[in-house]
């Protein structure tokens, strides 16, 4: 496993018992993590709102007491997340669950609304893909699963580094065959 300081760390969701309200933003199979965390907490379920990017899954059966609002895309879920954060009061606990790129984007939204990093919970679920920026042409590639890759913008061979930029919400892709063009290390899953 890569261990890089600038890469955000995520744990397991745990219900904050003192919270008066719970606001969850999840994507796809992230809903499983939400159901596991809230499963035994009837009171918390009743006080929770889940904004889900993507269709509901079987996991919703474990969240009978909760309002789960399914959104057609990540973008629409995030629009709703913005609106809920705007209206939320102190005493609302914030939870995120989904892929790494989802967690990065959602946590940036929460932080922009003044949520302190330490008070924000996230659980990683789903594919281990990365959002990558080519450091040479600055082009961004979504859902990169292997390294090295060909930059879809400028065409160079990029090694996906563990260096993560919180500002860009992306990992750095750096040219891998500068010395010997075309000589590439074996491709690995991220």
């Amino acid at each position, binding site marked *: 496993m890569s261990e890089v300081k600038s890469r955000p760390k995520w744990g397991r969701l745990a219900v*904050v018992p*003192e*919270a*008066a*309200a719970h606001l969850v933003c999840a994507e796809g199979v992230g809903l499983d993590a939400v159901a596991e965390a809230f499963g035994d907490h009837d009171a918390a379920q009743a006080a929770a709102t889940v904004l889900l990017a993507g269709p509901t899954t079987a996991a919703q059966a474990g969240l009978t007491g909760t309002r789960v609002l399914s959104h057609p895309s990540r973008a629409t879920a995030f629009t709703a997340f913005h609106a809920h*954060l705007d209206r*939320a*009061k*102190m*005493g*609302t*606990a*914030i939870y995120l669950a989904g892929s790494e790129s989802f967690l990065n984007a959602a946590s940036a939204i929460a*932080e922009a*609304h*003044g*949520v*302190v*990093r*330490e*008070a924000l919970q996230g659980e990683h679920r789903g594919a281990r893909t990365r959002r990558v920026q080519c450091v040479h042409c600055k082009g961004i590639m979504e859902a990169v699963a292997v390294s090295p890759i060909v930059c879809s913008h400028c065409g160079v061979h990029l090694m996906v580094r563990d260096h993560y930029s919180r500002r860009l919400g992306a990992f750095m892709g750096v040219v891998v065959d500068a010395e010997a063009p075309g000589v590439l290390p074996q491709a690995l899953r991220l």
Partner: protein
Amino acid sequence: MRALQYTVRVSEAEAVTPRVRRLRLVAADGTALPPVSAGAHTVVSIDTGERVIRNAYSLTAPSLSGGAYEIAVLRTPESRGGSAFIHERLREGDSLTLSAPANFFPVNRRARHHVLVAGGIGITPIAAMAEEIFRLGASFELHYAVRSAHDGAFCRELAARFGGRLHLYCGERQERLQVQAVLPNQPLGTHLYVCGPERMIEAVLADARAAGWPNANLHAERFVAPAGGEPFSLFLRRSQRSVTVGADESVLEAIERIGVEAPHLCRGGACGECITAVSHADGTLDHRDHFLSAAERDAGEHVMICVSRLKGRELVLDL
């Protein structure tokens, strides 16, 4: 290791209430003192003639832009002489020594709203924060509990400057600051800051936690003035020196009295700088700081020498 010090002259000394004296301090050499952030404090060395007492005081709002610093000193009956000296014997024109300001209680610049809570003399850092937030144009409310309008420092100035954002609670008029009434309906991303008597701080923090506020959004300034106790013997293992810690001095002060330097910043049990390893304790450690966790206290391996003491015969420190 000597921290940066300023020699200052008292340019104004004024009673703002019967129990609070305001001091304006300018550099003795005429240079401008550097600006400070709200929540910063300085350690004032007070030479009473018999001994040197060092007390930490919050820098008040007029210090923010630098030039001169101001502090407001409450006369406390349990004072070990520092505040009594400032009230009775210090005159305009006298010199004092200040440590360079340090800040363990800064304003969170990313907060969406700030709730400031002060009790009594706890207003000194809180009023500076209100001023800083006001200048930033950010949203805040200030809750200030005093015994009486007459006894509360800066009540009139704060009301004039902050208008409806100031909520004053007069004990005399049976007005109680009920923080439970303040906590609901604060927007997400609000930070709360509290300074005042220990009991008030604990109550405010407990109420906020019970209402689901994360610790990261709660900030308390809790300097404790070193209070006295029974005298005990102190032996410094590395420097091979021994000294008796008197009834009205701290371990740190006793060490400094015999010329041994120990690291420190706040001198109020808050910053952690003075943590010292205990080699041996013949007696029970009397922890009075806010830095060590309960587990660390129980382990008894470390002590914060600016405020904590020994109940017993002899303390041996790794100094």
